């Protein structure tokens, strides 16, 4: 019989992390809607997954990730037309509200493509940290480069400086088109950089306290 498990048969307060996750996040639970997870973020996470686990999902012995939970947070963009001549400027905000309390932040990185091939040249990109609207922006330097051309920037210090700053992270994605003279590339938007939260879920194998999903203190 291949009928899915009825969510209604689950207890009101699940006693296991997987059941709790099913009740709050699974299709059919209140408010669930398939998000726009696709493209570069999905490819990145699938690569990460293949490094961390075998085909049947068993974590590899090396445990190269060093943690049991990694959350990819997508940015919301704002502002008008990002292209201005050869320049691409996009303001991005990562909202971090609603993270489960049991997930302790170990490290946070922003992942982006510093260089994209175009038909007639390249698109070179960088990230700036927006501390306050009037304050000068801080250029972020990559701390690591991965095999598939991704660059990683460690933004942990900007997330853990006091609880009040944990609510969101503001960045500006800056790119410039560099190419041969006379080339006419149709402007392509580079994919938004995404935030990776490396978390230690202290309840991934234990019964959670009898309460609804927690929110971080702000």
């Amino acid at each position, binding site marked *: 019989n291949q009928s899915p498990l009825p969510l209604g048969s689950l207890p009101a307060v699940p006693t296991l992390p997987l059941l709790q996750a099913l009740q709050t996040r699974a299709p059919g639970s209140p408010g669930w809607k398939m998000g726009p997870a696709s493209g570069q973020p999905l490819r990145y996470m699938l690569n990460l997954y293949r490094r961390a686990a075998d085909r049947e999902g068993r974590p590899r012995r090396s445990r190269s990730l060093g943690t049991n939970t*990694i959350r*990819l947070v997508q940015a919301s963009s704002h502002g008008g037309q990002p292209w201005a001549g050869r320049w691409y400027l996009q303001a991005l905000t990562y909202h971090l509200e609603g993270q489960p309390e049991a997930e302790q932040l170990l490290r946070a990185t922003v992942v982006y493509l510093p260089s994209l091939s175009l038909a007639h040249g390249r698109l070179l990109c960088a990230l700036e940290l927006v501390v306050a609207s009037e304050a000068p922006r801080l250029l972020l330097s990559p701390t690591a480069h991965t095999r598939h051309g991704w660059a990683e920037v460690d933004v942990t210090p900007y997330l853990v400086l006091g609880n009040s700053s944990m609510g969101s992270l503001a960045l500006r994605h800056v790119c410039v088109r560099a190419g041969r003279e006379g080339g006419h590339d149709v402007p392509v938007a580079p994919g938004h950089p995404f935030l990776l939260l490396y978390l230690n879920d202290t309840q991934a194998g234990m019964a959670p306290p009898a309460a609804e999903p927690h929110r971080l203190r702000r």
Partner: protein
Amino acid sequence: DTGTLAHDLPNYLREQGGEKSDCSLRPFPVSFAQLGWDHWIIAPHRYNPRYCKGTCPHLLRYDYHAPNHAVVQSFVHQLVDANVPRPSCVPYRYSPISVLMIERNGGILYKEYENMIAESCTCR
């Protein structure tokens, strides 16, 4: 002396040929689609939680990791009252599974859940 005790137990010798039905680990691959979770869990595609099935022998061997109580219950079933069931064949050790999940806000979550794959069985 467990050797002597074993020979004193009724039916012990008859059970020696019944190892095929003894408590053991069995494979059971399922897909997350069968569980109705495939719109939520995008990796892995295959999941083999496995299960434990079979009869717990009258005399529990060392490799069943049975606690003292299970040994006593086995004796009670055999020698005192058959209404008391034999110890049950259940998982003893587990391993975790890594899953990749889509979150409702478009985020993607990698998470390791403990105790998702049975690795060995015991009689409890």
